[in-house]
């Protein structure tokens, strides 16, 4: 029983960590730029396929990271130029266009790799003891890694000049231009970074899930819910959102069953969208 409790709590933490890392890319794109990118899940999917491709070529797992960054980055730049910029400040059209894009990406990957499940083998096998109950090593690593990535991001966004410029652009674009900040280019760059982060998330979860063209659909809505619940424009918002969604899902699934867990997530999302749209941790 006690061991059960421990493991279930770690499961909750793990759930939160994965949610956060998977929503990260969207947090940048939707949270900072306000772009509703429905193709986010497909970027994750591409990242996962990168992991599989590296494995298929017998390269080390970590080689997937640069590959994913390259693929998603390039795609991101193209999409920003072709879809996002022309539809700037037309949220509904962006929504609809990126949905079309996600369809396009799914089918292209299907044409390229087929529909079969690709399994990416665990870079870390076996289990490690956490609070003297065994837990899968790679999942532990993923938790640690997510925390690291998020921490790094908090530091970079808070300290670096670029981070400050992005904040400036988000907060007051007109004034930012008066200071010579090339807002358009900066926004494009930010979008690309968001895409890369999505790809990175894809690489990280690849060994844990069945990799196939439709996997993105599982992540897009969850990611949106996380952001809406947490509040846009801050890593803290992202974390609190992941905590609520992932936590609620994990706890309810642990206490009752997965169906209730899923219902809880949907209901929570609806309630927040409706009653507290600025989320738990709203940007000032």
């Amino acid at each position, binding site marked *: 029983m006690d061991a059960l409790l421990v493991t279930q709590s770690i499961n909750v933490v793990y759930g939160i960590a994965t949610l956060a890392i998977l929503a990260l890319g969207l947090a940048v794109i939707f949270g900072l730029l306000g772009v509703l990118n429905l193709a986010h899940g497909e970027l994750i999917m591409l990242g996962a396929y990168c992991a599989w491709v590296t494995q298929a070529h017998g390269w080390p797992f970590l080689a997937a990271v640069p590959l994913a960054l390259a693929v998603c980055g390039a795609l991101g730049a193209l999409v920003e130029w072709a879809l996002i910029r022309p539809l700037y400040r037309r949220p509904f059209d962006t929504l609809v266009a990126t949905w079309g894009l996600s369809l396009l990406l799914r089918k292209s990957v299907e044409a390229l790799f087929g529909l079969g499940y690709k399994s990416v083998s665990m870079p870390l096998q076996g289990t490690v003891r956490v609070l003297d109950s065994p837990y899968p090593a790679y999942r532990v690593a993923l938790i640690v890694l997510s925390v690291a990535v998020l921490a790094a991001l908090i530091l970079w966004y808070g300290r670096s*000049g670029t981070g*400050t*410029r992005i*904040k*400036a652009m988000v*907060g*007051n674009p*007109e*004034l*930012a*231009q*008066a*200071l*010579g*900040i*090339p*807002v*358009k280019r900066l926004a494009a760059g930010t979008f690309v970074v968001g895409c890369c982060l999505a790809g990175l998330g894809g690489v990280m979860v690849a060994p844990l899930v069945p990799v196939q063209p439709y996997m993105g659909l599982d992540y897009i809505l969850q990611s949106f819910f996380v952001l809406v619940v947490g509040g846009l424009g801050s890593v803290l918002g992202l974390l609190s959102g992941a905590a609520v969604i992932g936590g609620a899902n994990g706890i309810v699934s642990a206490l009752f069953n997965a169906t209730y867990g899923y219902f809880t997530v949907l209901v929570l999302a609806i309630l927040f969208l409706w009653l507290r749209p600025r989320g738990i941790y709203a*940007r*000032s």
Partner: protein
Amino acid sequence: MSASLLEFEGLVGGYGSAPVLRGVAGAVAPGEVLCVIGRNGVGKSTLMKLLFGYLRCWHGSILLRGRRIEALEPPQRWHLGMTYSPQERPVFDDLSLRDNLTLTRGRRDLAPFAPYFERFPILAQRLAQHAGTLSGGEKKILSFVRALAEDQPLVLLDEPTEGVQWENILHMEALIERRKAAGAAFIVVEQNLAFAERVADRYLVMDQGRAVLAGPRAEIGREQLLEHLHV
């Protein structure tokens, strides 16, 4: 006039379908302050937005050091040596004062700001604070300092003294003088006549989207200005 840093003429522009400027001309030379004066809604801020490139001008030309710039984006104009302190939302509310000031600089040290902090110690005291917590007047001061400290050859100030206490207005005047001495040019939109009279080298008086009166301060008396301000 030949030595002028910025020249503009026949400027027509506005928002959507509505022309606010109906043909305005003017110029400013290095080490000179051009004060733009007029009632609300006569197009002063619109003129500034046109000059800095937020609004495309429908007709007319803007020359910076003899180069046409009306096609350029605001950031490009900044890189050519202009800067701008807007009338509304003059600072980044969710950035600290320090970040507001050092945003455009590679390094974050505050040495260049010493002379400004002398005049406005309150800024130095609140460096870590978010600009959003400042009062309207304090924001104006912060924005003013930021713009001047960039050491750009041409500074556009839109109502810099709005809501600023008068002793601080005097500090502003002194700092403007200091930059003038260093050869900087200013275009200042102002409603505060007293301030305008003290800093201006030339006036540009506007009414209903047109320049109705322009010339050196010496040639234009307060009565003429008041007549156009209708007070």
